[in-house]
């Protein structure tokens, strides 16, 4: 999150901001792994992966607490201004979105345990595709965060419509196949939950994109998006 090229006069202050950025980056990496693992558990029908996702979720929660403590401390003791102020406030928002992503990834993983009991579903490939898009969103927005670059953030923000469309299409098809074959209802419900959770992770990635955009430009992403 190199928003300024020059160093702080008070070294310890600069270090505290760097540590906040590092902690947020670690948290992002952790959540990304969680989501990838949860999706692998679903797609590969491998319930053995679930425990790892759950374990990471606890670590992510602890990281969010840590980010909040650091932000509180910075406000109380350093009174950050300008880019430092925007970075600090964005870190708080981003950590809360990442925590939600971790929680949703955990929910996805739990469904893998349920789905393992059923025969493979035809719509699983669509879940996989939706998952791949959301993973890419998360990856890109974390890139945007670490490089303080608005371009990938804007791309992520724009992908949100595609995620919504794919999710809606998946729901329609699932309802159709449930109507045609009552045997699909139980596994189908699990698939719908997974898809819903992916769609919400996409929303959180979009929130992070907005926060990164604000951090870098001080303006709302909508305004920038309208320009191009």
């Amino acid at each position, binding site marked *: 999150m190199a928003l*300024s090229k*020059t*160093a*702080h*006069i*008070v070294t310890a*202050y600069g270090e505290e901001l760097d540590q906040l950025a590092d902690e947020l980056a670690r948290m992002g990496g952790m959540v990304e792994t969680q989501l990838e693992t949860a999706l692998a558990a679903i797609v590969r029908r491998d319930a053995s992966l679930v425990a790892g996702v759950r374990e990471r979720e606890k670590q992510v929660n602890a990281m969010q607490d840590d980010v909040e403590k650091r932000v509180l401390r910075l406000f109380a003791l350093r*009174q*950050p*201004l*300008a*880019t*430092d*102020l*925007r970075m600090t406030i964005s870190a708080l928002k981003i950590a809360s979105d990442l925590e939600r992503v971790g929680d949703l990834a955990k929910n996805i993983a739990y469904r893998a345990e349920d789905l393992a009991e059923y025969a493979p579903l035809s719509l699983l490939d669509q879940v996989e595709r939706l998952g791949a898009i959301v993973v890419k969103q998360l990856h890109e927005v974390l890139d945007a965060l670490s490089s303080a670059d608005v371009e990938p953030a804007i791309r992520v923000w724009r992908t949100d419509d595609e995620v919504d469309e794919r999710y809606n299409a998946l729901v329609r098809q699932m309802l159709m196949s449930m109507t045609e074959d009552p045997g699909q209802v139980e596994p189908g419900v699990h698939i719908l939950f997974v898809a819903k959770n992916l769609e919400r992770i996409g929303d959180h990635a979009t929130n992070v994109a907005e926060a990164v955009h604000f951090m870098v430009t*001080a303006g709302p992403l909508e305004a920038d998006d309208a320009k191009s």
Partner: protein
Amino acid sequence: MPDNQSHILDQNAGFGETEPPIKVAARDVCVAYDGKQALNHVSIDIPDRSVTAFIGPSGCGKSTFLRCLNRMNDTIEGARVTGSLKIDGAEVNDKSIDPVVLRASVGMVFQKPNPFPKSIYDNVAYGPRIHGLALSRNDLDGIVESSLKKAGLWEEVADRLNDPGTSLSGGQQQRLVIARAIAINPEVILMDEPCSALDPIATAKIEELIDELRENYCIIIVTHSMQQAARVSQRTAFFHMGTLVEFGRTEDIFTNPRDPRTQDYITGRFG
């Protein structure tokens, strides 16, 4: 040609529909002391009925610019002021302007409270007396009381008006000096680091006072505290090495400064 003056004037939008009129308009104001340039082509429009904060590292020219507004630079030997400086459209440096009259309408408060070695009453009554603002003792009493009230000091001194001004605490002395300035109906009040010698409570009282006074005056305050500038002002101007680098809404300056020099200064980075 100064490189950034147009950009500075363009940033003036901000108060929206209720934007107060321009009180002080400076164009290409330069000051040199003994040939050494202290202020470089400063152009700025300062609105009435609001607080404008001047920030910047020591020696960047903040006090020099304040002194242009009440022609205090006239009193400094070797000082040379050029450019145009208008208050309510009237050129401050015009030969027809009497500096003594000018200084009645442009009051000044300094870092160190400087009450006269006189009673509290006489400190405030001094200005109205020499400017002939009071027709009777009754009149004068009224001016003293209302000025002390406006300065938020009346309650604390009403029963000891004959005590020396210097017997008051630092914060009270500073409010006495403000009452003294108010007593002669100024239009602009300049404050040069008015709180740097005060404790946080006395500072808070001055800040509260500034916030009340801005309804009726054009206030310009020099401060080394970012937090103070942020708390009391609606506009902030950042000076650096004799140049006005950036001027805009305080909120914008402290959340999103445009110039890297402003950015480095207010975030405490090496400039």
